């Protein structure tokens, strides 16, 4: 086995296998220094490089060749070199470029979060909250498409799509055959099926999970509820589909399972893909073996309704009496 190589990202060093990308090295460190990624998906070969949100600055190419790289690079595609020094959140240039990318992603996005099923678990929403400007400088009519039903379980809202190509790779690599792809070019590009073919195979539902925005939505869940009003519970069943893990999250509202999804990690990537039977047809508690509440990132709006508040409000932090009163609730977070 080759020796591990050292890379420093925002001042934190980590040793990784040769061939690791900057993004994955950052994920090994974890925390705020991990660049956001809208199109890269570690489980999909060939994905990444397109959205440009993960751009970082390479301040030192390697130990041997310490010159910086002339342009910002896509961290999901650039492999680390020994002694590489990367700047992500510490580089104003990177933050500026990322802000620009967010602005570009939003100029043709409908911003219909109030009626979008993805709201609350949308990567674009999170990204624009963290990196975007509060106002758009775009004053023109947005590009629009009609909604399309692609298959009986999935609806496509092309207006919301950011053309990450994840669903295309998913169909190529996870399902048995791809019948959809990207048509046209430039800002007229659209995800579409070939001559109105339906996406109809056992694994098609995974395109919903990989979609970072609300472009591909689950028709069995559409408009049923806001995700932050539902309660996520880990469950599994002994699925007889050979490629399906049967490990899912059930999203409850009261006694009812409103939807079933695959389990997603902290970067929004599914842990294992699930089949359509598990996703669309098993919506009774009796179909499943319940494991327990799903751990949701404390920064997520979904957790705010069900779990303790992640951080004390500033007003609490500033007041001795309130700190004392809330000590239990926030454990160690109050200094």
């Amino acid at each position, binding site marked *: 086995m080759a020796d591990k190589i050292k890379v420093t990202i925002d001042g934190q060093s980590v040793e990784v296998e040769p061939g690791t990308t900057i993004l994955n090295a950052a994920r090994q460190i974890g925390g705020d220094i991990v660049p956001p990624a809208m199109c890269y998906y570690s489980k999909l070969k060939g994905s*990444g*490089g*397109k*959205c*440009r*949100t993960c*751009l970082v600055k390479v301040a030192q190419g390697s130990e041997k060749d310490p010159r910086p790289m002339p*342009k*910002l690079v*896509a961290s999901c*595609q650039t492999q680390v070199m020994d002694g590489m020094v990367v700047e992500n959140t510490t580089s104003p240039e990177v933050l500026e*470029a990322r802000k*620009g*990318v967010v*602005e*570009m*992603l939003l*100029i*043709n996005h409908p911003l219909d979060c109030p009626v979008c099923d993805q709201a609350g678990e949308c990567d674009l929403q999170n990204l624009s909250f963290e990196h975007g400007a509060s106002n758009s*400088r*775009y004053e*023109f009519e947005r*590009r629009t498409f009609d909604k399309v039903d692609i298959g009986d379980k999935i609806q496509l809202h092309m207006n919301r799509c*950011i*053309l990450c*190509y994840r669903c295309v790779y998913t169909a190529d690599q996870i399902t048995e055959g791809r019948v959809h*792809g*990207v048509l*046209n*070019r*430039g*800002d*007229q*590009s659209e995800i579409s099926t070939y001559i109105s073919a339906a996406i109809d195979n056992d694994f098609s539902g995974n395109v919903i999970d990989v979609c970072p925005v609300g472009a591909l939505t689950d028709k069995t869940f559409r408009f049923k509820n806001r995700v932050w009003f539902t309660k996520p519970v880990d469950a599994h069943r002994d699925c007889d589909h050979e490629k399906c893990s049967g490990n899912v999250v059930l999203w409850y509202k009261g006694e009812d399972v409103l939807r079933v999804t695959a389990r997603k990690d902290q970067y929004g990537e599914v842990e294992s893909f699930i089949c359509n039977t598990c996703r669309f047809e098993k919506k009774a508690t009796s179909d499943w073996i319940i494991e327990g509440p799903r751990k949701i990132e404390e920064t997520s709006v979904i957790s705010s309704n069900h779990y303790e508040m992640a951080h004390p409000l500033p007003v609490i932090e500033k007041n001795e009496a309130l700190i004392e009163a809330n000590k239990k609730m926030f454990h160690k977070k109050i200094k």
Partner: protein
Amino acid sequence: MSRKILLEHIDVPGINTFDTYRKMGGYRSVEKALKTMSPDDVVEEVKKSGMRGRGGAGFPTGMKWSFLAKPVGVPRYLVCNADESEPGTFKDRYLMEKIPHALIEGMITSSYALGANTSYIYIRGEYFYVLRILEKAIAEAYANGFLGKNILGSGYDLDLYVHPGAGAYICGEETALLESLEGKRGNPRVKPPFPAIAGLYACPTVVNNVETIAAIAPIVNMGGDEYAKIGIGRSTGTKLISASGHINNPGIYEIELGLPVEEFIYSDKYCGGIKNGKKLKAVVAGGSSVPILPANLILKTANNEERLMSYESLSDGGFVSGTMLGSGGFVVYDEDSCIVRNTWNFARFYHHESCGQCSPCREGTGWMEKVLHRIEYGHGKLSDIDLLVEVSKKIEGNTICPLGDAAAWPVASAIRHFREEFEWHIKEATLSQTRNFGLLAAHEALVK
């Protein structure tokens, strides 16, 4: 300063046929290379010649060739980029149409140097009639033993194919071209790996422009050192320039690099001056992607030195006061041209041609076009000018392929050099619909 190499025999009747081309000394480089030189010798000559790629980026060809990976048992490919779509550039079409054998000869010699046994000419879809001409020429080359098995008894085999694109500017980007050639959607690939390591069908590949490949034959014939004597400094050899716009003699000119820009515009041997006795306003020196320069900066550099037609001289001053030789699409604008309209027109082109893969280019090109359209039609705001600069900066350097840069540079440079005109267009919204701004006062004194 008027040595002709590529177009030496352009006026010979029947030069498009094999027999005439051969009679005029054609295919000598194939004989010389295959019979007397090893592939590495040919690469060495090309390196010595110092020739830089004629497609636009100007990367030394010999160096590019030497990067080609040569793993055992893996085929290598040479692909000729004949997807000439840069607005203002039409040199490759002329060369392929008039002297198709010049390209075929270059392809054979280059393929031999690179060890490719299958080579492709990827030609722009709109040039379908040129494809026919090339196929006829290839058939003639096969019939005369210059293509196929065991060429000239040397044991070297080569098959050459012409493949038409389907009408996309982006397929002139080398990796998008390879995707398209493989039968996929023409999206540029994320680099690395570069084509020299994994190109066509994931095999090591060299992609060169038509003019570059055609120039290989004279380099092999005369020797790299001899070729390097032509031109000036690191800009060696001759270059085809597509001259268009408000000039008396638009057309293709083969110039020796180092010719003064002023001579090129005003000499009767070349452009013959500005049409209708008007004054020069601006020049786009290397195809629509390169920064536009006003008259004073195209004739003289910022240091008041004479501006020459060479890679170094044109890029003197960086993007602040310089431009690039690019692909040699030389577009001249007279005093009555509207820079705003021209910039909008370019922006419209890039908006139309963006592949839509990465966000800044996909969304930003459309945005710039809409803002420029608004200014051009008298609905602009003064803040639009800074907005355009901002948007162009957000695109530049942040995309997968150079199309983003190519879309950003013309807009940024037009505003850099002609800001007054943009402001006038916005302030005098009604007037700007009926007349043009004319020359900038600052430029007037400098222009003939």
